[in-house]
Each structure stands twice: as structure tokens, then as C-alpha cells.
């Protein structure tokens, strides 16, 4: 009998701490499935961020290192250079990657480090209680933009994929979402592809995943999924920005 659905081996079978309806959990599962399917779990090393996913090492069933806020790409660089035959990925939020860790992500991408970055953009600082992120939408209310994000003084949401796509070195850059099953499938495909790039030694790969934070958005999980679709997707267009093979074709 063929098993068609089960618990990924790359995920530890234990309850997680994420809020009900938070899509961090879905993204964890997609990453775990991709690692399983590529059969690289035993040689995978995860780098956990500072953010809601700080405990990711308790959920992924692989070796891990916990990095300081924003520094995951530098830590991953050190690991990958020391162990080039291992699969190294970071899992980072938008505050972690696009604010405090902007230098690290840009330079890891620019060096073409052969690592995979899972960038979870929920347009807010989840862990610290809902402050404004560099990806917060214009007008979006957060605990540090109580009148709504004012673009005159705080600028506009940073489009990480578009920005990194100006660099020459990266091999794969894509933005996906997990607000409905169809998009979850697409997200899975992109994440797997990103890891494939690394397995094949192609260089830097990044998947930005639009994600919800019902708790700090002040919404029900269902409302949050709708809000993501209606408000985030227009600001952060989905698609593949860089795919090395296609470029060289």
C-alpha cells in the first residue's frame, strides 16, 4: 500500500508554539516535505532566526544553529564553507532579514553562497508584539505605527526579491504565498526548487513566502488569509524573479 499522506520525517512530531492559524506552521511543513523528497535530511543544517521561528530547531528534525537577530546568512555562510557537502538553510522573518539583517542577506546573495533562504514575510514583527516592519504596508496599523504606516516618514515596504534580483550572483529568487491551497502547492514547488539549486551546487536561492500573523494583525485566521491575498499580494507580486537555468537558456 502506498502512503499518500503522512508526517514528514524532517519535521519533529510535537506540538509547536505558533498561534492558531499562523502560517509559519504551513511553511515549516513545506520545507520539511522538500527536504524529505530530496532525501537530504541527514545532511541538512538549519539556521534559526530571532523572531517567532526562533525555536525552529525544535520542529525541524535536523541539526541546527540558532543565530543572532538578522545574522542567519552569515552563520549559514560559515557552516556551508566549513561543510560544503551539507545542505544549509536559513529561516528568517521580515524584521530579521529585511531590517536588522539587510547587510547579511544582500552580501550572502551577492557572494552567491550556496545556501537556501526561506524568507517569511508577514509584514510585521510578530515575536515582539506587532511593531512596524520594513515590509509593513502603507497605512497599515502596528503598535509603532498606530496611525498607519506613514510613507512620508517611514518609506515604503521593501521588496526583497526585486532588490536581490538586481544582483548578478543569485541563482534562484521567487515569491510565493500560502493563503490558499493552490498557492500552498506553488509555494511547495518553489521551496523544493530552491533546495534543488543548492543540492546541485548552483548557488544562492531564496524563497519569500507571504505569511499571516493573525495575532498581531488583530484578525481571525480566515480574515488574515483574505487580508494577505487582498492587500499583500498586490504590493508583493508573486512569481519567479530569477531562475538561473532559464536565464542561461
Amino acid at each position, binding site marked *: 500500500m502506498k502512503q499518500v499522506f503522512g508526517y514528514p520525517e524532517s519535521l519533529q512530531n510535537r506540538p509547536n508554539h505558533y498561534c492558531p492559524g499562523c502560517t509559519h506552521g504551513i511553511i515549516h511543513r513545506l520545507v520539511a516535505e522538500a527536504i524529505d523528497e530530496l532525501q537530504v535530511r541527514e545532511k541538512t543544517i538549519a539556521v534559526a532566526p530571532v523572531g517567532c521561528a526562533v*525555536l525552529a*530547531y525544535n520542529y525541524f528534525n*535536523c541539526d541546527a544553529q540558532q543565530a543572532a537577530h538578522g545574522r542567519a546568512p552569515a552563520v549559514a555562510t560559515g557552516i556551508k564553507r566549513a561543510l560544503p557537502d551539507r545542505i544549509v538553510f536559513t529561516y528568517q522573518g521580515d524584521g530579521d532579514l529585511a531590517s536588522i539583517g539587510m*547587510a*547579511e542577506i544582500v552580501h550572502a546573495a551577492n557572494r552567491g553562497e550556496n545556501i537556501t533562504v526561506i524568507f517569511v514575510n508577514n509584514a510585521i514583527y510578530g515575536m515582539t508584539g506587532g511593531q512596524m516592519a520594513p515590509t509593513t504596508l502603507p497605512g497599515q496599523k502596528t503598535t509603532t505605527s498606530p496611525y498607519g504606516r506613514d510613507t512620508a516618514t517611514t518609506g515604503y515596504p521593501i521588496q526583497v526579491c526585486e532588490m536581490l534580483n538586481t544582483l548578478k550572483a543569485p541563482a534562484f529568487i521567487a515569491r510565493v504565498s500560502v493563503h490558499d491551497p493552490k498557492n500552498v502547492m506553488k509555494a511547495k514547488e518553489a521551496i523544493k526548487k530552491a533546495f534543488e539549486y543548492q543540492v546541485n551546487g548552483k548557488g544562492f536561492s531564496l524563497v519569500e513566502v507571504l505569511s499571516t500573523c493573525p495575532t498581531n494583525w488583530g484578525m481571525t485566521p480566515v480574515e488574515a488569509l483574505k487580508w494577505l491575498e487582498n492587500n499583500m499580494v498586490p504590493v508583493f507580486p508573486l512569481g519567479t524573479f530569477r531562475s538561473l537555468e532559464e536565464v542561461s537558456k
Partner: protein
Amino acid sequence: MAERIMMKGNEAFAEGAIKAGCRFFFGYPITPQNEIPEYMSRRMPEVGGTFIQAESEVSAINMVYGAGGAGARAMTSSSSPGISLKQEGISYIATAEVPCVIVNVARGGPGLGGLTPSQADYFQAVKGGGHGDYHMIVFAPGSVQEIIDLMYEAFVTADKYRNPVMVLADGLLGQMMEPVVLRDWEDLQIPEKPWASTGMVAGKPQSVINSLGLAPEELENMNIRLQNKYRTIEENEVRYEEDGVEDAELIIVAYGTSARVSKSAINKARAEGKKVGLFRPITLWPFPSKRLAELAEAGKRFMTVEMSAGQMIEDVKLAVNGKSEVEFYGRYNGAIPSVTEVYQAIMKSFEGREVHK
């Protein structure tokens, strides 16, 4: 195999690390230690190692954390302002118990300061520097040969205790050229690191390199473990050098360049019949407190000579615990005390004393 060659201090840090089996260097340019990354960028490819010029000191120390956590012998080097930037990373590394070596070829501060040699990073090196209750082991070489030898000891000690080791020098030591014996360490072997995060290959249990302890009890236990380790290090790893302390009335306590200058000043004062000795801490942490306490007990008095406003003097005072007098002579960041100045300070310390005896 040993060869005798002329070498600059900064090159000695680099070649000393290579000889110690270090194959991963991550750094960012800053004067007066640029010869270290430059040397490494040339040398690492020759020995199959990795050199990365990181985007910042912050990134460099986090690359060290990654490589060290993956089991490699890894290092970074910088100078004072750059070392300040590394402090968050060092705190993580110390807590996650990742062995590595950090070289600080210190320059005058505070702020952007200047390019002249300094010992004003003493507090930062020995008292923590970053947040939390942690310690680096801190070596203070006094010659180019000692730089080479201590780089080896630094990597060995880092691995032995799973602890970051800082090799703290000043810009003068970095720039100075001296003859050295460069040898291959016969006992060079990098120990097995079953704790490292290298992948759960063949059923190996999960390794997590981590400094997070969300539950209060978990965090306290983590700290108790660290503190126990620090007590063991204090017990076993203290290093110092003494010269003429037995009959001395006054003992100059100095390390690095200050110790070199003091030595000449002491010789001059000895020639005038003054009973002066030199005590040179080689480990600044753990500090040779026990030995200094013994010497205080034996009736000696002390003077620290430092290229700062007086930092190590606090540890000497703690060590002697009020049992004897501790004087200070220093030039602030940016100036190196001259032999004459230290000699005069010594002579002044003796003024009037004989009369009262």
C-alpha cells in the same frame, strides 16, 4: 621541523593560526591589523582553507560562529572599534560554547580614536564586553614569537573548553618585526567534536548550537554550567611570567608592550640598587590573582604600567585585596610609555620609603 625567520607581529597571528590548524578566516579591514586578513587571503588558498572578507565585523564574527559550530577551527581578527561590533556575536558564541579565536590588535580609543597602540580594551576583553555573564579566555603575547606560540595554545584551549579565546595585543606588537622560530606542532590534532552541528548523519542525534534558554530554570542551569566551566578554567589555565620578584620590594605588573618597556626600566632601576621585579600576566582572564595575592602576603607592593587610564589595576587591587599598595603609571591611549618615564615612576615610588623603614 623548525625554521628561523623574521616576521611581523600581524603576520605571526596569521601564520600562527595556520600552523595551529585554523583553516577558516573571516574578517573586515581595519588598521592596524590589515596584514592579518591580507596574509590570510594569500595563504588560505595555499593550504586549502577559506578566507572571506566579510561585509562587516558583525558578519565576520557570525561566520566564525557558523564555522566553529560546524566543528572547524575558525578565527577572526580586528582592532578596537571592530571588536566592539563583534560583541553580540561573542556573547552568543560564549553561551553556545563554540570554540574559536578572536584577535584584537588594539588601537587607541574611545570612539574612532586613533591608529596608535593601546591597551584600553582590557576591560572589554576580560570583563565580558557583550551582554550577560560570560568570559573569554584572554591571552596577551609579549613578543612575535609568543604570538605564534599563543595562537597555537589559543586554538587548543578553545577546543578544550569549548570557549572563545581572545588574543589581545596592541598595535605596536602587530607592527613589530622580530626573529621567530616557526615550527610544525607535532601534537597538532583537532579533537573530535561530537557536539558540533554537522548533520544527523547515520542516526547521530540532533545537535543544536544555541544560546536560548526561554524557561528561567533552563537559563539558570545554562549559566551554572558556564560558571562551573569558568571555575575549572581559573583553576587550570592561569599563565604568567615572573622576573626578579623574589627579592623585589616593588613589582611592576604589566603585559604586552608595557611589559617590554617596563623590563628595560626595571633593569635601569636595579642598576641603581632598587629592588624591582616584573610580573607579566600572560592570561588576562583567568587573571593570576592567586599568585599576586601570595606576593602581597609576602609584603611586596605593586605598580601597574598600562597604555590606558588604568584598567588592569582594578584586577590587581582585587587580587591583593587591600593587603598592599598598588600604584599606577600609564599613558593614555595613543602614547607608549617610554623607558625613562617608567624608570622615573619606579624611582618616585621608592622616594622617601627607605627613610621611614
